[in-house]
C-alpha cells in the first residue's frame, strides 16, 4: 500500500490539502506566515502562555470533539484529519460569537494580546455543551496567561457564555463537519518528503517498523509538547519526524478488572478517565500536568519516553507498579517502569525503539494511593518535588510500601530504603513515621536549581511522606491539603 503524501484538514468549511509540509513547520507559523491569518498571537512560543491557542476538532469514538491546543509548538503535520478553528473564524458577517460578545460585555480584555487565546480556549468548552462552573472554567483556562485583567472578568464571561447547548455556526454544521472528518480517516500511512527530510505519520505497525528500522535517527514524535521546544527554542535542525498520533495500535486504552493498559500515543486528556478510575489523586495529578492545551496533545507515553527527572507521571506509575512495553520493529519487550530510567537523559531505549504502552495495575483491597505535586504555582507548573505512595494496610499497620519521587534525583526514582523502613509501621505511631522518613536522606541527594533548593526538596519529600501517613491514619484531606482534596474529588 502506498502512503499518502499530503495532509488534509478542514478549515472554514473547506478541505485544505497540503503536499509541501516542512517537517518542523508549526501550526502558528503556518497561520501567520503562510495563511496571513494574524489573529492568533505568539506570546512565548513554548506552549506556556496560551496566546496562540487554536481549537482542533476531531472525532473521538465517532463523536465530534473540540480541544484547545498551543499552535506554537504543534506541528502542521499533526493536524492531519482534523478541523482547525482560529479566532479569525468566529465572528460571522460582523456578528460576534457568543464567547466574544461575553468577553466584550464583561470587560474581559485590556491589552487584548492574550484575548484570542482565551477565546479559543473557551470555544471548546462552549461546544461541549457543558453548563460551566467556576472550577471548570479556571481549569479550562489554566494554560492561558493574562497579565492585565486579573482574570475575574474573563471567568465571568465564560460562565455567562457557556450555559449549555451551543448555538453557533459550528453547532449548526456539526453533522457536516463530522462527516468530513470521518471521510478523512482513510487509515493509510502518511509520508511527506524524501529519505533526507520527512514528516511521517504511519497508521500501521508494519510501516512504523519499517520507518524506525530505516531511520533510527528520526525523532519519534508523540504530542510535541516537548519536541516542539526543541524546534522553537533550541532550534535543533530536525529533518526526520515519525509521528505516532495516527498509530491505531498505540492509541488504545484497554481496561480489565485488575489493570489498565494505556497506549503510548493516548493523550493525557484521553487517559484522564482511566487514571481517575484508579484513584482521585491520580486524576488530580493529571489535571495539574500542563494545561488543557498540553493535555490535548501530550501523551503519557511521551512523558515516560522523555525520561525527565521531573516528569509527573513516572513517579506515580512507579509507585503503582506499572509495567512498560517497548517495541522495536516487530520485537516487543516489557519491563518494570522504574528500570526504564537509567540515568539523567538516559533511558533503556535503543535507537528506533519506541515506547508502546504502559500497564497500570488497579489498586487492590487494602491498598491505598497518595500523590502530591509541589510547584510554585498550582496550575501549569513543573514540579519541584513530586511524591507518590502506594501502601498496603492491614490491621492499622503498613504492610507494603512503594514510594517514588520526582525532582529528587537525576531520574524518577524509588525510595527503597525508606520503603523498608515504612513497612510494618503502625498508623498511630507518628514518632515511628518520623524515623522512617529520615531514611529518605539515604535514598536521595537532590540538587539546587531555579525551582527549589536541595534543602527544600529534602525537607518537603520528608514532609510528604508524613502527610501521606497522616492521611492513612484517617485525617481528612481537607485538613491536610490546600489543593486537590479527595473529599471534593467528584464535586466538580
Amino acid at each position: 500500500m502506498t502512503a499518502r503524501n499530503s495532509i488534509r484538514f478542514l478549515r472554514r468549511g473547506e478541505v485544505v490539502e497540503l503536499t509541501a509540509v516542512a517537517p518542523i513547520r508549526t501550526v502558528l507559523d503556518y497561520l501567520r506566515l503562510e495563511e496571513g491569518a494574524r489573529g492568533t498571537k505568539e506570546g512565548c512560543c513554548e506552549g506556556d502562555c496560551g496566546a496562540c491557542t487554536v481549537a482542533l476538532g476531531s472525532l473521538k469514538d465517532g463523536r465530534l470533539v473540540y480541544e484547545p491546543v498551543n499552535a506554537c509548538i504543534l506541528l502542521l503535520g499533526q493536524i492531519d484529519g482534523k478541523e482547525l478553528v482560529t479566532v479569525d473564524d468566529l465572528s460571522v458577517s460582523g456578528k460576534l460569537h457568543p464567547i466574544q460578545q461575553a468577553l466584550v460585555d464583561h470587560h474581559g480584555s485590556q491589552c487584548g494580546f492574550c484575548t484570542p487565546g482565551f477565546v479559543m480556549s473557551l470555544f471548546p468548552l462552549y461546544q461541549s455543551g457543558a453548563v460551566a462552573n467556576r472550577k471548570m472554567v479556571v481549569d479550562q483556562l489554566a494554560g492561558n496567561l493574562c497579565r492585565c485583567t486579573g482574570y475575574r472578568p474573563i471567568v465571568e464571561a465564560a460562565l455567562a457564555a457557556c450555559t449549555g447547548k451551543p448555538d453557533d455556526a459550528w453547532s449548526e454544521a456539526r453533522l457536516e463537519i463530522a462527516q468530513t472528518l470521518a471521510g478523512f480517516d482513510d487509515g493509510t500511512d502518511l509520508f511527506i518528503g524524501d529519505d533526507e527530510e520527512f514528516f511521517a505519520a504511519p497508521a500501521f505497525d508494519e510501516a512504523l517498523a519499517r520507518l524506525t528500522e530505516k531511520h533510527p535517527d528520526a525523532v519519534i514524535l508523540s504530542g510535541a509538547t516537548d519536541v516542539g521546544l526543541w524546534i522553537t527554542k533550541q532550534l535543533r535542525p530536525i529533518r526526520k519526524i515519525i509521528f505516532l498520533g495516527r498509530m491505531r495500535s498505540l492509541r488504545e486504552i484497554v481496561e480489565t478488572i485488575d489493570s489498565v493498559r494505556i497506549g503510548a500515543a493516548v493523550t493525557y486528556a484521553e487517559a484522564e478517565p482511566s487514571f481517575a478510575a484508579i484513584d482521585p489523586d491520580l486524576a488530580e495529578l493529571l489535571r495539574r500536568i500542563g494545561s488543557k492545551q498540553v493535555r490535548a496533545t501530550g501523551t503519557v507515553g511521551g512523558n515516560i519516553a522523555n525520561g525527565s527527572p521531573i516528569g509527573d507521571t513516572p513517579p506515580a506509575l512507579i509507585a503503582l507498579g506499572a509495567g512498560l512495553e517497548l517495541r522495536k520493529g516487530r520485537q516487543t519487550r516489557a519491563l518494570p517502569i522504574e528500570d526504564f530510567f537509567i540515568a539523567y537523559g538516559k533511558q533503556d531505549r535503543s535507537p528506533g525503539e519506541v515506547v508502546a504502552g504502559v500497564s497500570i495495575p488497579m489498586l487492590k483491597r487494602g491498598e491505598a494511593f497518595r500523590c502530591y505535586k509541589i510547584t510554585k504555582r498550582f496550575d501549569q507548573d513543573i514540579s519541584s518535588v513530586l511524591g507518590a505512595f502506594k501502601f498496603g494496610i492491614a490491621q492499622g499497620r503498613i504492610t507494603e510500601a512503594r514510594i517514588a519521587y520526582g525532582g529528587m534525583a537525576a531520574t524518577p526514582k524509588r525510595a527503597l530504603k525508606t520503603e523498608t523502613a515504612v513497612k510494618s509501621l503502625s498508623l498511630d505511631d507518628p514518632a515511628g513515621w518520623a524515623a522512617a522518613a529520615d531514611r529518605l536522606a539515604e535514598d536521595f541527594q537532590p540538587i539546587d536549581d531555579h525551582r527549589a533548593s536541595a534543602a527544600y526538596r529534602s525537607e518537603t519529600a520528608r514532609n510528604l511522606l508524613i502527610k501521606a501517613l497522616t492521611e492513612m491514619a484517617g485525617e481528612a484531606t481537607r485538613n491536610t491539603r490546600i489543593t486537590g482534596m479527595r473529599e471534593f474529588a467528584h464535586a466538580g
Partner: protein
Amino acid sequence: MPAKVKRIATDTVGLALAHDSAELHVQGKAVYIDDMREPEGTLHVAPGYAALGAKGRITVCDLSAVRAFPGVVAVLTAGDIPGINDCSPAMGDDPILADGEILFHGQVVFAVIAETRDAARRAARLAKIEIAGELAAITVEDALEQGTEDVLPPYEFRRGDPGKLIAASKSTISDSFHVGGQEHFYLEGQVALAVPEEAGGMLVYSSTQHPTEMQHCVAKMLKVADAFVTCECRRMGGGFGGKESQAAQWAALAALGARITGRPVKCRLDRDDDMIMTGKRHDLRIDYRAAHDRTGRLTAVDAALLARCGYSADLSLGVNDRAMFHADNAYYYPAVRIKSRRLRTNTVSNTAFRGFGGPQGMMLAERMMDQIAHRLELDPLDVRKRNFYAPGRDRTPYGMKVVDNIIHDVVAELEKTSDYRARREAVRAFNAKNQVLKKGLALTPVKFGISFTLIHLNQAGALVHLYTDGSVHLNHGGTEMGQGLYIKVAQVVAEEFGIDPERVKITATTTGKVPNTSPTAASSGSDLNGMAAQEAAARIKARLVDFAAREWKVKPAQIRFAKGRVIIGNQSVTLAELARRAHQARIQLSSTGFYATPGITWDRDKVKGKPFFYFAYGASCSEVTIDTLTGEMRVDRVDILHDVGRSLNPAIDLGQIEGGFVQGMGWLTTEELVFDTQGRLSTHAPSTYKIPCASDVPEDFRVKLFASAGNPASTIYRSKAVGEPPLMLALSVFSAITDAIASLKPGCMPPLEAPATPEAIMKAVKAMSP
C-alpha cells in the same frame, strides 16, 4: 476629610464603556506591530550575545559563520552605528551593541539581519564570542562586598535624629530582608518595525510607552535630526513599565538595520531573549531599625534601601526615589532617616515597573507594622491604624504635608464590609484546631503619590480635529497599553462636544502629531492627556460658540453642546451642520491642547517641596491558608476598597484595580527571578517564571470603588490616577501569609522574604518551630 467637591453633571464621562478596542481584541483583529502587513522586502533582526560571561572584555568575536548562514543579509556590530551607540533614557550608559566589553549576561553584542526571522535566529546562534571573565557582582550582597561603584549617588531623607532615639528606646525592632524583582511579562514581547523614508528619514513603529524617547534614540543613533524620525504606536500588548526605556534598543536595531540595508526591518524578540535582555523591577535588600511606644506607635525609623540596579543607571534614579517616597506608605514617622543606595551589579539594568519603586518602599512600612504587632501580640490592623497620618502628624519624611488624607475612612469602611473582626476570631479558632494548615488575615492600606517626581515630565499635548461631518479625530501623547487611556480621553472629548464617543476616532500615538511627549507612566496618562485633549476640544468649541453667537445673534451662554446637537438659543443644529457653516466662514476646526500639572515644586537637590499633586488611597483585606508541611499557599478571599476620585470610566478603573492587585500578588508570591552563580537568568520563560493564572485568583474576590466626592485636587473631572496604586493592595497577601506563619509562635515575627514561594514560606515556618 477633604473639602466637598462640586459635582459636574456629565453625559459620557463616568460611563462604564467597553475598551475602545474590545471588539477587535476578541476577534483577533486588533493590529499589533507584528500583525501589520510587512512592507515589501522586509528583513528581520535577531540579537546575538555571548553564551557565557557576565562581565569582561570581549577577546574573541568570530561572526564568520553567522555571516555565511543562508539568508543573512548583514551582521551589525557597534562599529556600524553612524551616530551615538546608546539607548539609555538619560545617562548615556546603555550601549545598543556592546563595544569591547560586556557588563551582564545577555548583553547584545551583534545583530543579524536576514530574509526571515527564522534564519536570523538560527544564524545568531553560530557566533563564537569569548569573554575575559572578571569577577562579577550578581547580588546586592556581591555589590556590597566587592564595593562596586554605585550606578548613581546615594540619596537620603531625614528628619530629627532617629539613630539617637532608637538607641535610647526600650522598644525597638530591626530586620534585614529581601524583596524580589519582577519580570513584566507583557504578553506581546518587544517589537519594532523600521521603514526607511526618503532623504534619510525613518518611520519607526514601536511597541513603546515612550514614542518620543524612541524618536530621540533612533535620531542620535542614526546621526540625523529628530525631525527626520517619526515614531508611532497604536497599541501595546501590555507595557507595565517594561516598554518605557526598554523598548529603545529594539527600535534602534531595527532602524540601524533599515539604514544599512535600505529595506524595512523588523525586530521582534523571542520570549526567552526578551526576558534575558530587558530590565525588570528592582529587587532590594531593606535594612531597618525602629523604635515604638507601648501601643505600637512608631517614634523613630532608620532604614536603608539597597537596590540592585543592574549594570547601568536606566531609570534607577526615579525608581529608587519613589521607593523612598513610599517607605512611609500611609504612616507617620516622627523621626526618620530613609537612605537609598543604587548598587551596580552585572545583571540586566533594572527599570520601570508599575509602582516604580513604590511597592518596594511600602514593603518596609508594612514589615514594620507586622513586626511590631506580632512582637507585641497586638492585632496588626490596630497597629496600622495607630500609625496612620492624622492631623498634627501629617508631614511625610520628605517634608510634604498630607492634606487629602482619607485613609481612615477607607480602612474603617473596609474593616466593616470585610467583616475583619469576626474573621480574625474565625482565623484564630481555625489555627487552634488545625495542625497542618494555618490561616492568616491582613488588612493593609495604600497611599500613593501622583505626579512624575521629575517635574518637567508632568506635561502633555493633544491634537483634535473636528471634520465638517461632525466627526472628531483625536490624538494625544499618551500611549495605549491596555489600561484604557484611549477610551477615557475619548470620553472626555466626546463630553466636550456633546457627541457619542463613537463619533470620536481614536488614532495612533505618533511623534509626528504631538511632539515632545512624556512617557505614559507614573499612572499619569489620563490626568495629563485627558486635560490636554479637553483643552484642545474646548478651544475648537469656543470658536464654534463665538461663531454661532454671531450667526444666530444669541449670547454665548445660550449655546450648549449635547447629544450630537448644538442648542443655540431656542434653535438647534447638528454638530455637523455647525461645523460645515463654521468651515464656510473660515473658522479653524483643529486645535492643539496642552496641560502642565500645577502646584508641584519638588527640588531634589534641596530635598524640599511638594513632589505630588495629590495621593491615591486604597485598602485591601486578604485571607490565606498555608500548608506548614510544604509551604504551599492559597488565597481564600480578598476584599478591596479603592479610591479613584470620581471615575472617568468605572469599568476600566475596576479592571485596573483587579489587574493591578493580581499582578502585585504574583510579585509577592509565585514570581521568582533566579540568577545562577554565573549571572545567567535561569527563569527566562513562562515555564520557569510563574505569573498568576486564573485559578490563583480567589473565588471570593470583592472589589469596590470608594464612594468619593471627587479628587480635591483639580484633576480632569475630579478623577484620580489608577494605573499603579492598586498593585500595592497585594501587600495584604504578603502580610496575611506572615500572619499565618506568626500563629506558629506567638510573640515572634516570621522571617518571611518576598516572593513568598513555597520554599520561602517553609523557611519562615522552620524558623518559627518551637
